[in-house]
């Protein structure tokens, strides 16, 4: 006779579930006639970190870029299905894309500060949205730089070029720039892949702070990073027609200790991909 002890030891560490912030329903993305993503259904929970993993070319970045309609900027790109942000379908033509991108910010793989001062980099977004009072801007810049854990390192050189600081600092400057417009969701596409280990850890620590206030979605090739930082993990693969699919979604603890799908198992153990 078998006796079940606790449901699973891994459930103990599982995160408490929060409401859905972003809901992807039957999403397909096409580049011209090529279908890059197919039948994607995914729930991104509020104030949690969701990692998207999978082999190169499986559509992780395409999926991430759908969340704030960055794909619109790619000629010939077309999306079908629905992406709900707080219940509102942001793929409808009537939706104001500028407002979506204000609510859903993005941080890229390589730090890409503008060739402007540190201050102006952070103040760029707020100015675009019509904030011009010096005192207001100063407040936003300080708050954003503090939130991105960069303030202490740059407070005395806000007028220096954003390109004059280290790569790790530049990436945190880009995070501050994203935070300055008060987004709700932050998309991160391999945010630490161009950084050294110490800067990488700083970004990862920062993410844990940021998730108290923001919903974060991160694309990463680094399995350990996904395992360390995220609460949920989505595993993607391409199908026979080379379209990206979501093959497994679960609590990160489950994905990295006992995934259900053989392909996830092979990928996270480094035997495939």
């Amino acid at each position, binding site marked *: 006779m078998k*006796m079940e002890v606790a449901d699973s030891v891994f459930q103990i560490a599982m995160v408490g579930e929060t409401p859905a912030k972003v809901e992807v329903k039957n999403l397909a993305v096409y580049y011209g006639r090529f279908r890059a993503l197919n039948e994607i259904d995914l729930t991104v929970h509020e104030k949690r970190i969701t990692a998207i993993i999978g082999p190169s070319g499986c559509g992780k970045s395409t999926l991430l870029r759908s969340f704030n309609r960055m794909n619109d900027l790619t000629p010939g790109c077309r999306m079908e299905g629905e992406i709900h942000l707080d219940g509102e379908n942001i793929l409808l033509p009537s939706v104001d894309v500028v407002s979506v991108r204000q609510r859903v910010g993005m941080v890229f793989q390589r730090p890409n500060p503008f060739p402007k001062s540190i201050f102006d980099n952070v103040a760029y977004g707020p100015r675009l949205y019509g904030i011009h009072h010096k005192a207001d801007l100063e407040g936003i810049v300080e708050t954003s730089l503090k939130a991105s854990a960069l303030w202490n390192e740059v407070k005395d050189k806000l007028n220096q070029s954003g390109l004059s600081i280290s790569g790790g600092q530049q990436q945190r400057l880009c995070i501050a720039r994203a935070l300055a417009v008060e987004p709700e969701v932050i998309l991160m596409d391999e945010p630490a892949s161009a950084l050294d280990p110490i800067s990488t850890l700083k970004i990862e620590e920062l993410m844990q702070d940021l998730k108290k206030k923001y919903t974060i979605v991160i694309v990463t090739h680094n399995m350990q990073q996904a395992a360390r930082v995220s609460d949920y993990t989505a595993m993607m693969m391409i199908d026979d027609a080379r379209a990206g699919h979501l093959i497994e979604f679960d609590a990160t603890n489950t994905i990295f*200790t006992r995934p259900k799908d053989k392909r996830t198992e092979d990928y996270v153990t480094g035997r495939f991909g």
Partner: protein
Amino acid sequence: MRKTFETEIQQLKDEMLLLGSMVEQQIIGTVEALKKRDIEASRRIREMDLQVNAKRYAIEEQVMIVIATQQPMAHDLRLLASILEVSGELERMGDYAKGIATVNIRMGDQPLLKPLIDIPRMAQIGTDMLHRALTAFVSEDVETAHAIPAQDDEVDDLYNQVYHELMMFVIQDPKTIERANWLLWVAHNLERVADRVTNICERTIFTATGEMKEIDSKVD
């Protein structure tokens, strides 16, 4: 892909099997020494325990090196965690064999209270269970891992038999209490060996399936 890692895993499994066979020899040898009242043999069993402990620590260290350098995930991680656990179980079984050797040494000139029949049988079944459990572990044979713990009932039955027989001696002649107690301690150690085999079977199922289940061989 991951050839180095696969080799490291295979080496760990081999080392674990080696540790297992050392413990099997210890258990069979310690009961044999008791049966023959061979004190020298029992001393050798006690010395062998140092090698068993050293091998267990070597496996533990190697597992940690593999975890640190290969960052295993999913099945690989479960397997390595289980190897740690199973080596610990094997080391404890070695301690039971050592305990039996100590009994033989401490008994000194006193003769055995009764000829040993059920006790060697317990050792035989226990080591047989252990051997099959380790084979199932390395091949991740879940079916066998589920089946082995039922054999624990045979060992428990033998233990109860030994217990009642010894109690009869004590009731008839209270002066036999110390000699009865020596043998009861021996039987108890062998009964614990079989219990720990069940733990190895649980780890086999966990490694293969990710499910942590307690196998209880007794039907209530």
